[in-house]
């Protein structure tokens, strides 16, 4: 549905994007992840034909964004980061205007606007001026204007930024409900958002793609081994030598110890589960096994690892 190839954008001598390449399948939700200034908004602006790239290619629904911007624009719904709306208009009038300009036929217009008001939970607000609305409702109006022509592709730039937790959950639910029917790119720097809503993640940093994968694979693959935390009641040195003897443990790191209870982080070989061996070994030596659990690396850790690698 969306193909981006070697997209480069420079502002004078500053290179905002450096040959980024990725693609999105139909019906997928792609998370676009990166620290501030990584080039997320720039990429989105290129995809929405707001400005062109310095070089590279981008296609949406088979149309090139440079060659046929008009065809592309008809097929996308865009929500910019700061949600710019005409604040001097009523919600329903604004959405009717957008629907008209996006080419919704006159006879369908009323129905379409009504549907999108329902969908975004705005029915009670339809006759309010946009500048009277709270940030959360304005965000919904922004989403509604993106959805009003039922576009094939949705491009959402930080759709949940600045909302309260309840609103964030509602907006995420709304986005998840759209999945399948539409192809969505959403940018964010909030990591749980990605693991909750997205099928796939593109992590970019300083204008370069540093990783493309599913959130699950990213969390699993990033470190070559899996880690375990063990808490043992027993003489520290003996426990360390005892643990080192167990096959499949690459490294034993002592974390802390007090009153004869020590905590260790074990790097184990990937793909094999040696928790049983560890438990058995400790019990056989007569020590007390107080805790044994795998360390899951969160998306946060991975993100920071990827982004700070250079």
């Amino acid at each position, binding site marked *: 549905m969306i193909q981006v190839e070697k997209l480069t954008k420079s502002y004078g001598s500053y290179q905002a994007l450096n040959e980024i390449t990725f693609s999105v399948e139909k019906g997928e939700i792609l998370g676009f992840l990166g620290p501030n200034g990584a080039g997320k908004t720039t990429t989105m602006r290129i995809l*929405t034909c*707001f400005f062109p790239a310095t070089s590279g290619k981008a296609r949406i629904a088979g149309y090139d964004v440079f060659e046929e911007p008009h065809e592309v624009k008809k097929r996308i719904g865009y929500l910019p980061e700061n949600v710019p709306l005409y604040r001097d208009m009523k919600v329903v009038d604004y959405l009717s205007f957008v629907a008209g300009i996006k080419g919704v036929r006159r006879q369908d217009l009323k129905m379409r606007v009504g549907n999108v008001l329902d969908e975004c939970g705005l029915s009670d607000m339809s006759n309010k001026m946009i500048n009277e609305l709270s940030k959360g409702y304005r965000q919904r109006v922004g989403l509604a204007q993106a959805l009003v022509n039922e576009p094939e592709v949705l491009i959402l730039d930080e759709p949940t930024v600045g909302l309260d937790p309840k609103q964030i959950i509602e907006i995420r639910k709304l986005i998840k409900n759209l999945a399948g029917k539409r192809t969505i790119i959403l940018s964010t720097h909030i990591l749980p958002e990605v693991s909750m809503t997205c099928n796939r993640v593109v992590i970019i940093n300083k204008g370069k793609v540093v990783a493309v994968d599913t959130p699950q694979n990213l969390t699993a693959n990033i470190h070559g081994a899996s880690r375990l935390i063990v808490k043992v009641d027993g003489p520290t040195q003996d426990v360390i030598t005892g643990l080192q003897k167990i096959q499949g443990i690459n490294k034993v790191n002592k974390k802390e110890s007090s009153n004869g209870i020590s905590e260790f982080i074990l790097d184990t070989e990937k793909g094999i589960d040696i928790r049983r061996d560890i438990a058995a070994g400790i019990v056989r030596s007569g020590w007390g096994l107080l805790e044994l659990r795998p360390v899951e690396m969160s998306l946060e850790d991975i993100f920071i690892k990827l982004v700070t690698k250079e």
Partner: protein
Amino acid sequence: MRNFYLIAKKELYSYFSSPVAYVVITIFLVITGYYFYNLLASFSTLSFQASTNPAIAQQQNLLNITETVVRPLFGNISMIMLLMMPLLTMRLFSEEKKSGTIELLLTYPVTDMEVIVGKFIACFVVFLLMLLLTATFPALLILFGEPEIGPTITGYIGLILTGAAFISLGIFTSSLTENQIIAATLSFGVLILFFMMGTSVSLMGPTIGNIMMHISLIGHLEGFAKGIVDTTDIIYYFLFIVLFNFLTLRVLESKKWRG
């Protein structure tokens, strides 16, 4: 071509949902009305004096209501337009740039041309309404006197063309900046320059003077106020409008190649 209609409709909505249009129109009418009152009052004083003083009565021009009231009124209206029109045009692009709505507008399936034409038409409608309300002045004259209808109509045609020219310039300056005050100041500056040019013609040589006379806005409006419809003047306004709309189009397009 439905798009420019929708944009024009939306801009009109914005004009009238905020106090801008009401304030500008009201002040415009108050000042033009005040001028009209002054012109009419001095005309009636003159007529009164003429009834007792034959020397004044012999100056035919003074007692012609078209010459002493209608013609200067058009001159005055055009000056007040110069002060008011930039206030109507300044927000058209600047506001969208500042609030960021331009980003959404330009990613909708509309062409830059449709956006400009839509905004132009909306502002032109507000201007026409404003000008239409001044028609009460000549209407009063027709009710109580006998002004010439021809020059009154051509005078209005001249004002309409002048207003359209002002709008095209104002939209252009508005497209240059996200600051409305800068947009208005630029269009005041350029418009006043276009007016002043006519006054310095006598200081220049014949060639440059002639060119300046033709570029200046004053000379072209005068003909209309006298009742003369000259194609040169119409072409002048037409070119003025096309030129600045074209420049606005270039400014909007420049985002495509600017770094």
